[in-house]
């Protein structure tokens, strides 16, 4: 069991720098998910911590020890790979016990340890099989077995579920979470799948372009993103953005000419910005009965024709437009909207996030506090 700390980590390949100064602390026993688009550096961070790549500068700690110059095998970590990397020429038992064999454990103890691990994961009947004889879920379990048998301080999981089909993915996700709860081993889980991130993580680290964008509990990241990137990356369908011009101290004008007055505290944060983007989650927009005209002070209302409706069973996704922006709405009450029909949409500015157009940072007060706290 150990905490993990990254301090001022830099890494580049040739002239391309992939990690641009990352500071991060992970608490003992925590399950942290790294998420970001491909090329954001999330896998590189794992490989750096594992010692498979060498950082250009910065320091990494596992527990109290600086691990920079420690060989991977002595860092006491275990890693699960995207394609599992089970040695094809070894049986399941040999795969699981390989690390112990290399550490010189005698055969008797090794067999006992393999048996214990196998029963923990329900692999007893597969021990003599070769990896190619296994199904995807079984391979995944063997890979887990190989990781947990050494009782490492840290688990590193590099998109371990991405090769499974959707149903199995959900099932394995739950198993991983239960196992982690039980073993209480500090875990870093890398994924690009936001549902995995939201459901698994104690804390999520959103990475983009080699930098940490935001760190926090899943619900906090969802409700208070610090910038446009985090807001857009989490949530499905993505948050909607609507462009707005500043036309007064606390007045914004939308492309369709509609004006909205901001509460004073929000307006202060705008300072001298001329242009902003309003971000609004699909579930925060309502489809209202047309001709409904009761308008609250800071509510935005407009009408549009429906371009597409997707049904998710209990909910519906209704796509329409605000000016040139496509707008997605997630609702249980579509008020009779059908494709091609005209609907009236509305949302309250109290639920919206404001982002600076120039650098994408979030201007809402709550998000501002979060930003100071994490970076």
């Amino acid at each position, binding site marked *: 069991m150990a905490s993990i700390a990254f301090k001022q980590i830099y890494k*580049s390949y040739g002239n391309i720098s992939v990690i641009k100064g990352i500071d991060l602390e992970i608490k003992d026993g925590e399950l942290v998910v790294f998420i970001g688009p491909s090329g954001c550096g999330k896998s590189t961070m794992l490989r750096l911590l594992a010692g498979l790549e060498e950082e*250009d500068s910065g320091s990494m700690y596992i527990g109290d020890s600086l691990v920079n110059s420690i060989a991977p095998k002595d860092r006491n970590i275990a890693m699960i790979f995207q394609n599992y990397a089970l040695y094809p020429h070894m049986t399941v038992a040999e795969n699981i016990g390989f690390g112990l064999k290399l550490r010189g454990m005698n055969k008797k103890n090794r067999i006992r340890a393999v048996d214990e691990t196998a029963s923990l994961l329900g692999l007893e009947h597969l021990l003599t099989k070769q990896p190619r004889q296994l199904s995807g879920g079984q391979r995944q379990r063997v890979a887990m077995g190989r990781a947990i048998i050494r009782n490492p301080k840290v688990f590193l999981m590099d998109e371990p579920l991405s090769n499974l089909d959707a149903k199995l993915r959900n099932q394995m996700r739950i198993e991983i979470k239960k196992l982690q709860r039980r073993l209480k081993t500090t875990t870093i889980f890398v994924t690009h799948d936001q549902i995995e991130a939201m459901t698994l993580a104690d804390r999520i680290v959103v990475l983009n372009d080699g930098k940490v964008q935001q760190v926090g509990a899943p619900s906090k990241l969802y409700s208070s993103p610090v910038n446009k990137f985090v807001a857009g990356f989490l949530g499905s369908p993505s948050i909607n953005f609507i462009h707005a011009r500043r036309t007064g101290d606390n007045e914004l004008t939308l492309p369709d000419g509609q004006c909205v007055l901001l509460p004073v505290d929000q307006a202060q944060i705008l300072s001298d910005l001329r242009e902003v983007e309003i971000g609004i989650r699909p579930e925060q927009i309502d489809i209202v009965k047309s001709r409904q005209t009761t308008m609250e002070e800071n509510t935005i209302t407009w009408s549009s024709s429906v371009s597409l409706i997707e049904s998710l069973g209990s909910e519906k996704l209704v796509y329409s437009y605000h000016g040139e922006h496509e707008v997605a709405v997630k609702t249980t009450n579509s008020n009779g909207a059908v494709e091609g029909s005209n609907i009236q949409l509305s949302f309250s500015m109290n639920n919206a996030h404001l982002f600076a157009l120039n650098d994408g940072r979030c201007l809402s007060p709550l998000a501002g506090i979060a930003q100071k706290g994490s970076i």
Partner: protein
Amino acid sequence: MRDNTTTHGKKRLVKSFFNAEHIKAWLYLSPALLFLLLFTYYPMVQVLWDSFFHRPYGADKELFVGFDNYSRLLNDENFITAVKNNFIYAIGTVIPSIVIGFGFALCLTQSSRFKNCIRSLLFFPTLVPLVAAAALWMFIYFPGIGLLDYYLAKLGIQSTDWLGSPDNALYSLMMLTIWKNAGFYMLFFIAGLQGIGEEYYEAASLEGAGWWQKLRYVTLPLLGPTSAFVFVIALIHVFTHVDHVIVMTLGGPMGSTNLVLYYIYQNAHEFNDLAKATTATVLSVMVLLAISFFSIRTMERGIHYES
């Protein structure tokens, strides 16, 4: 922040000079490189250097003679004959053995117990030492009672002096070479043919192509890279194998089976004219370099074509 990045850059620069990975790479390459250096690169330079020197009979040290060795070589009738012979030998073995090998492959691509057995029989000559093959074929060519004449006589064909006549000897050697290599090339073509997806033939069938059209418009173009590869292998073979000449004819009769490598061997081993052997080696190396240059380009084209 800016300062930070520059020191960071400096650190990286220093690192690349003492890069552990580079050192490791050179360490792992060094055994192979050492032997290549000693027995491939150095000799190539050495022969070139030596080809400008000559130690006349009785002299105690080598003298720089410029291109003298080259002019001596090119004025040596035996060498000219060897080059001519090698040329005929090349054309007369490479093309037939490739065509025959391809023909075999066409018949034997699909696996079955029977076909695998035939494949093995046709391939077997490749595994036999050229010296052993030459020993067997000496009897095959033996006038009158040899295998060839014995059975040809049953067809009413008169006995032929296969190896003893200057008109026949080179062609007799060529037959042996074709017999020995066709099965080898067959394997490459089988591998190539098995690599062509069935869907191409299905598509061609749908478009109404017959057997010949499929061969002409699907098989042959897609086998381009394989053919180029086999062609180069066959060419190299022609310049580097003369065991059968040594066993069967010793270059005779009347120089009719003298090949360039045999000429080199003879001058080095029997005539003690190292200067000529060396100079002929330089020319052979140049021909092979030219072939490699040409073939790397063809192969690259081939690869490009495949993808």
